[in-house]
């Protein structure tokens, strides 16, 4: 019930750890952009809606990229929103290219950087096959790792390069030059024959990294598990293993297990209810329950990103009823 650690922290650290000031500051920015809202509903109501939407994870919709990646909660909320909005792509079995997935991401976040989508696609595809089609779930899980652990993976890439080049990033900790040389020679020799780096050495470096990393990183025990199954591995081999590891997916808490990815009865019900209200759509929706035979390459309907922000937020607030119970786990 009580966590003494939380109560013992200095004020500023407690606030920083939970990003309280980030959200308060953002709430004020939003308020300044929507001054007419306060005169109508009052400030307290405005803040209530803002903080409720943060809890429910709908606060990131149609926001700028810098905000979306500002906190781990925002990142998880964005992943979840992406999954919920475009789940039908996977359900229909459509395969899309990297650029098409990027367009979908931009529907939720207009200034989403292409670089990040490319990096995620590179986990799924080989370098020379970047135009190939990917399934929704492959892309989603690769994207999750790349987006959520982005800073961590950058550090991992640097460590990997050092190891490949025969440098041991841990040499500061093991300073005896003889042992360093001893290790160097065979690594260089092997690198020409074998691909990648030695898993156990790689793990030592990563363990060290997890300890001092200030951004989120995957649970070290699971990283160890991934690396203890193999002798050697490449950087992308490591990323693929991370993205397919269901324990890491669970620890992150934004997406369901791979098997349940297409299964979201609450949203399905809500969708059906909404579709039933649109007279023109009823026929096509009920006559074609096997939607998979439709080549629906057009992106699903979402609110256009250039709509004024406060407008979009009100839309979310209305549909919140159905999402509440599934969203609780991540807050």
């Amino acid at each position, binding site marked *: 019930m009580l966590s003494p650690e939380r109560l013992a922290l200095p*004020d500023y650290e*407690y606030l920083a750890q939970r990003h*309280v*000031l980030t959200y308060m500051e953002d709430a004020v920015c939003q308020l*300044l952009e929507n001054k007419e809202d306060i005169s109508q509903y*009052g400030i*307290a109501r405005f803040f209530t809606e803002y903080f409720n939407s943060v*809890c429910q994870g709908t606060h990131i919709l149609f926001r*700028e990229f810098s905000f979306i990646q500002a906190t781990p909660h925002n990142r998880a909320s964005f992943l979840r929103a992406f999954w919920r909005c475009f789940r039908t792509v996977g359900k229909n079995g459509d395969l899309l290219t990297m650029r098409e997935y990027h367009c979908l991401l931009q529907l939720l976040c207009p200034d989403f950087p292409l670089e990040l989508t490319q990096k995620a696609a590179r986990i799924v595809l080989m370098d020379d096959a970047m135009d190939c089609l990917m399934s929704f779930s492959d892309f989603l899980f690769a994207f999750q790792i790349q987006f959520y652990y982005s800073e961590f993976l950058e550090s991992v890439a640097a460590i990997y390069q050092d190891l490949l080049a025969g440098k041991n990033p841990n040499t500061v900790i093991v300073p005896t030059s003889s042992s360093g040389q001893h290790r160097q020679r065979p690594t260089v020799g092997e690198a020409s024959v074998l691909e990648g780096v030695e898993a156990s050495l790689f793990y030592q470096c990563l363990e060290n990294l997890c300890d001092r990393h200030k951004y989120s990183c995957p649970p070290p025990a699971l990283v160890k598990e991934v690396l203890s199954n193999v002798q050697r591995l490449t950087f992308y081999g490591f990323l693929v293993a991370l993205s397919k590891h269901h324990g890491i997916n669970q620890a992150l808490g934004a997406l369901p297990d791979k098997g349940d990815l297409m299964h979201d009865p609450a949203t399905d019900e809500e969708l059906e209810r909404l579709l039933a209200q649109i007279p023109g759509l009823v026929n096509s929706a009920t006559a074609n329950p096997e939607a998979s035979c439709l080549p629906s390459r057009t992106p699903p309907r979402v609110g256009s990103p250039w709509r004024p922000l406060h407008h979009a937020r009100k839309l979310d607030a209305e549909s919140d009823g159905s999402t509440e119970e599934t969203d609780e786990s991540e807050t």
Partner: protein
Amino acid sequence: MAAVEKRRPAVAPAANFTDSGRPAGPRAAATAESEEDFLRQVGVTEMLRAALLKVLEARPEEPIAFLAHYFENMGLRSPANGGAGEPPGQLLLQQQRLGRALWHLRLAHHSQRTAFNNNVGVAYECLSASGRKKKPGLDGRTYSELLKRICRDGEAPEEVVAPLLHKIQCRDHEAVPLGVFRAGMLTCFVLLEFVARAGALYQLLEDPALAVADRRVGQAVLDTLEGALRASDEAAAPACFLEAGSRLGPDSLALAMDRALVARRPSSPMTREEFLEKAAALFIAKVKPVG
């Protein structure tokens, strides 16, 4: 955090908790000033300052949910209070005051004693604010009603908490000083937690199939608890905690339960209500009556 600071350079630092230096030209500075003025004028600055203080005082596990709840409550009570409409009836006003006091009391767990004491103080002020006809001060009737509400919301069975209420209640017309009020609130919250723990304990003893516990085991546990509590009468403060702790340790408790089972008394069931009532009675026996 660095990325956050860079966000939207056109919007200047909104409230005075952002003290990091942002690039601000003369025009940006002007808008910043007007925005700061605006925020101060409409009361946002003051409101957020108060909210932040509450967060720091209570240190909730989930501060964002806490804030949502905090502002929701504020929004609920402001129109009724400051509205230009007709004044609410005396009874409604009383209910509002009770609700507000309860809300303050629940902001922090009683183990966070400083925060809890502050909140008790605020709740006391809420309740003793003078009505139109009444003199300021808290009377026994309101105090008793608050105690009842806390117990009811705490989901403890009525017969379990009734003896406590009897002990710490004041007469309806009596004025209740802050000290008595604070002690009463604290005792009430501690008892509720005690009863909840006792309920969990009972669940462990309970036979899942029959939904009752063995009387011999239940009584043994209660006796051990009583022994531990009695120990605190004899020794000075730090020693008695240790003494009670050791008596309640897994070893001695298991020993007592084992002995109870071996004893050749006939087995009979003990219900949850009975167990809770007896456990609570042990606690309530230690509470000093008011007056």
